[in-house]
């Protein structure tokens, strides 16, 4: 199981196993709970010097502080590095917390993107309407929270353009995404308006395959991979932080790059 090559040729099956491994133990009350999780410190002192719950609450506070630090460091104009086509990772890995054959199968014919929250026009969008939006392309590096990275080619509409068309109140703090399988994600408005943040309909100039998030993913090259939702079915502009699948489990909320 340990035959892993990071790049090139990331093995999809192994990545699925990785994702499964990332899940916290169901039996664990908090993600730091238990002497074993305190590892080195426990071993060094021979006793459990840190109360799991208190450590967890302090670490969450520091993580919130880090959200602020990252937001301050975030530049609205600084672009993620782009690469030539020859640099694209082949095959580009499938990555999720479930198996590839368990990935959502969205029917494009009946698909509608729901729009909600602080917007002027809450009309749903069909795939044909979305495909008619102006298209831009990017070849950027997808960086996973696990550490591996892969370069991919994505085509779609700048998300800021879509926000303009739905009359979004861009003074709102967040944009929340809901996905077909129940995955959720919240991002900050400055990132939503970043020029490279994209509503993605194609990978390598072909309609997004199921593995990569058909019919639509949100490609954000300034954030870690798990902040790039796939199979997106609803967008909400909001002032309430609704959290997200991994963020609620302990990953840093901002997760900027």
């Amino acid at each position: 199981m340990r035959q892993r090559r990071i790049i090139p040729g990331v093995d999809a099956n192994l990545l699925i196993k990785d994702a499964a491994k990332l899940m916290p133990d169901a039996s664990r009350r908090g993600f730091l709970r238990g002497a074993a999780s305190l590892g080195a410190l426990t071993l060094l002192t021979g006793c459990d010097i840190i109360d799991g719950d208190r450590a967890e609450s302090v670490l969450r506070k520091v993580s919130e502080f880090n959200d602020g630090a990252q937001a301050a460091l975030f530049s609205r104009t600084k672009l993620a590095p782009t690469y030539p086509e020859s640099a694209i990772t082949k095959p580009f890995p499938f990555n999720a917390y479930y198996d590839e054959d368990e990935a959502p199968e969205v029917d494009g014919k009946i698909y509608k993107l729901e729009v909600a929250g602080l917007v002027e026009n809450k009309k749903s969008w069909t795939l044909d309407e979305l495909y008619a939006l102006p298209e831009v392309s990017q070849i950027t590096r997808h960086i996973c929270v696990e550490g591996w990275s892969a370069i991919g080619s994505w085509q779609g509409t700048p998300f800021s353009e879509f926000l303009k068309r739905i009359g979004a109140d861009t003074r709102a703090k967040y944009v929340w995404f809901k996905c077909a399988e129940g995955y959720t994600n919240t991002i900050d408005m400055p990132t939503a308006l970043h020029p490279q943040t994209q509503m993605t309909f194609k990978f390598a100039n072909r309609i997004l395959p199921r593995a990569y998030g058909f019919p639509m993913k949100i490609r954000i090259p300034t954030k870690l991979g798990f902040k790039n939702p796939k199979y997106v079915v609803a967008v909400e502009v909001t002032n309430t932080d609704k959290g997200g699948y991994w963020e609620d489990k302990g990953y840093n909320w901002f997760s900027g790059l």
Partner: protein
Amino acid sequence: MTAETIPMAAVDGSIHPRWVRVCHWINALAILVMIGSGWQIYNASPLFDFEFPKQITLGGWLAGALLWHFAAMWVVVINGIVYVTLGIATGRFRRKLLPIRPGDVIADMKAALSFKLAHDDLSHYNAVQRLLYAGVIIAGIILVLSGISIWKPVQLQELTALFGGYDAARYVHFFAMAAVVGFLIVHVALAVIVPKSLRAMIAGR
């Protein structure tokens, strides 16, 4: 051991001024957290065909380890800036660590390996010590900078490029960690062999 056996070299009578001792122990604790959590993070996507045993990692799983890593990061960086600034400003680095002459290093290394290297005067570093202490400071700086370049490969992409890009920076970060861990093994072993050096770092003399 009596006080008479310890030479009085520093002006204020102590071998290590208070700021050195405070920085040393803050760093010791923070660096253990960084290494333990860093090993857990490594395990999520290993660069080589091995993983660190879970028992010696910190955080329980990836998210927990990342929280520890990015919390202790502030302690390591702020403490490190204070230490390096005072080390330069007070002239301690220049006085204690320089010069490092290759000839001296080879001679002292030979003496050390044949157990003939004098260790009596704790206030004076031999050439091997100078090389190791200066080396670990440089490794620490590379460790921090490569870590920042992995953390912020877009906002600080110029720094990341300096390390040869994102993927290369991960290897640099790993090897800088390995250098620091290698130093720690020697450092702790010698502190155990020469207990008065440990006392000097706690009590100052």
